[in-house]
């Protein structure tokens, strides 16, 4: 027992060091790569000067490219991946299903519809903030709709939540298609919408970081208050209630935080699927089901996924493969693997 207690933290520290190392390498590759060749010494000078750790003359063009171009892009990638990983962990915990992801209750589709409307109506051309804000507002509207549908006499049924999510996914999917079909008349607008729906981190700026950082940080902070409850909720709601957990409050709060994380992420990156499914699942098999640890590690793995997927589409493929397509190409087979693995369990349902 003693050894086991000692080994577990060591294993997590080791995992943390590995993930941090992979992330740092990803950060470095993102910041050092691009069309504009910048020497390593200049790169570090720029970063340290911008962080206020160094006072030296730096090339202003290179500084702008690194600090206003590449840095926000990699930070957005990190925050989007982290958010999706955390949101996926919460959703899988609440629905007690390793195949659940934030998309199951329609949050993704709601955010996508909001963004598509913002592009179509021309709001996104007026301000860089318009599209993300529309996406976040629509994801919250979706959450409210799902809750109103699934709540009866003060009781919210988890299975009705799922079914309502499926229905809203279909409705919002149809409405998104409708807006796309309206936009095909204007070829340029249609192209922007489709590009956005495929997930894209091109030309991300500090404004995008300013949008996704608060949603990630606030929702993570909020989640930590209910993390113990999530662990208990995973056993079953009756037990949780007997143990003094306000199941309704905890579940609703956790779903709200999950929606904020997802809405914020999709708002700045477009639709990026499957990260919220894969990251928690892989990490659960390594660090176990305790959400106190899992949420953090799943977030880190989500960030690793997005940063490396972005590097792959940016530096290796170099054609019009979008990050959302790549994550779906990786996530689809993984989902099928889970389906085969758990099919016996589903046969009894």
């Amino acid at each position, binding site marked *: 027992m003693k050894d086991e207690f000692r080994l577990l933290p060591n294993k997590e520290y080791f995992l943390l060091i590995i993930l941090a190392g992979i992330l740092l390498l990803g950060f470095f590759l993102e910041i050092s790569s691009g069309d504009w060749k910048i020497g390593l010494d200049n790169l570090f000078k720029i970063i340290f000067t911008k962080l206020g750790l160094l006072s030296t003359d730096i090339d202003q063009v290179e500084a702008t490219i690194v600090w206003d171009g590449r840095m926000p892009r990699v930070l957005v990638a990190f925050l989007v991946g982290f958010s999706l990983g955390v949101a996926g962990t919460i959703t899988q915990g609440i629905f007690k299903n390793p195949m659940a992801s934030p998309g199951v209750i329609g949050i993704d589709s709601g955010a996508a519809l909001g963004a598509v409307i913002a592009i179509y109506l*021309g709001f996104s051309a007026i301000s860089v903030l318009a599209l993300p804000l529309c996406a976040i507002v629509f994801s919250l509207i979706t959450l409210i709709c799902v809750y109103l549908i699934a709540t009866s006499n003060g009781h919210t049924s988890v299975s009705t939540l799922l079914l309502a999510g499926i229905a809203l996914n279909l409705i919002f999917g149809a409405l998104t298609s409708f807006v796309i079909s309206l936009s095909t008349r204007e070829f340029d607008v249609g192209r922007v919408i489709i590009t956005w729906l495929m997930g894209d981190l091109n030309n991300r700026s500090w404004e995008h970081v300013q949008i996704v950082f608060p949603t990630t940080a606030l929702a993570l902070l909020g989640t930590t208050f209910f993390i113990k409850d999530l662990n208990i909720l995973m056993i079953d709601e009756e037990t949780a209630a007997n143990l003094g957990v306000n199941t309704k409050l905890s579940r609703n709060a956790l779903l709200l935080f999950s929606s904020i994380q997802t809405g914020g992420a999709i708002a700045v990156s477009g639709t990026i699927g499957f990260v919220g499914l894969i990251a928690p699942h892989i990490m659960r098999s390594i660090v176990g089901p305790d959400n106190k640890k899992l949420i953090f590690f799943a977030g880190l793995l989500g960030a690793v996924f997005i940063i490396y997927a972005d590097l792959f589409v940016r530096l290796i493929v170099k054609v019009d493969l979008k990050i959302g397509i790549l994550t779906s190409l990786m996530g689809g087979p993984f989902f099928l693997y889970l389906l085969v693995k758990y099919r016996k369990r589903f046969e009894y349902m």
Partner: protein
Amino acid sequence: MTIKEIAACACMILLIAACRPQESRDNNGTLSPAPLEMSSLKEALSYARGVVQDNGWPRTIKYSYEMYDFKTDTFSLDDKTFNMKHKPLRIVPHAVGVADILWAICPRERILSFNEYSADPDFSFISDEVKKSGNIFRSKQTELIIGLNPDIVFTVFYSDSSFKDKLKQANVPFFDLGYFGTISSIESQILLIGRIIGEEGNAEALIKTMNEKIAALKKKLPQMKAPLRVLYFDEGGYIPGKSSNFTSICELINVINVGEEKGIKSWSQIDFETLLKWDPDIIIVPEESKLKEQLMTNKILSHAKAVRENKIYYVPGVYLRVDSQFIILSANLLAGIVYER
């Protein structure tokens, strides 16, 4: 859901459809003084009459069919023949470019109906005239076209294949035109259309006018030590390359399309860092967008020459989408902009 809620949802959908801002613009494009007077140039390109050459009917037309494959970015050339039993008097163009050409070389009473895009000022230079004619169909209204009982329908290589199939099933003769992206291909298509409709003289007259106008335009262009480098930046960061009509427009006014220079074939998406690296002298953006404001306020692009010198210009989309004789109007307008007349 109650009936009220369903009605509210329906209203929301209709509101979204109705809210899209519909901008109206002047097709004559008086954005900046162009080398040639715009309205007289448009007039000259809109009506061409030459010597009547009736070579008799029926006729067999041999032609080269050039097709552009969007997927592989390659061109293919096929030799084909087309039989026309009698002079077509009832003609339907299925694409804007074909309608533009017919408008100039065909007696207008022979054009039965126009595609909806020909009535849209964002796509067509003859939208006002087409609207006045009132004979407009939607691209997918095949039944309407069949019902018109046309002698010939002009489609293009990218027209919907199901549309062509339906025409075939209804025994409606149609002629599928090839690639239209360059001045030479546009001229070939004009001659071909002229032969099919029995208006070879008018087609030759239009080409003569085009060549005269191109020569007049070129004559008025200033001599530069090095050609200006112009980049067309579209929504989403898309840039046209070699096989786009923008390259042809640039060639007409002795400037370089930066997209072509950098190896883009049809269209490709770039980021701001790449744009800064390419550093064009001038950036053209579609007027329907708010791209100028976005580019001018972008921190990375603050170092770009075009931004520093405030050389980002809006151009109405119709000038950038053109694939007919009116490409000379686009070149004329662009010349006025890039050479700052």
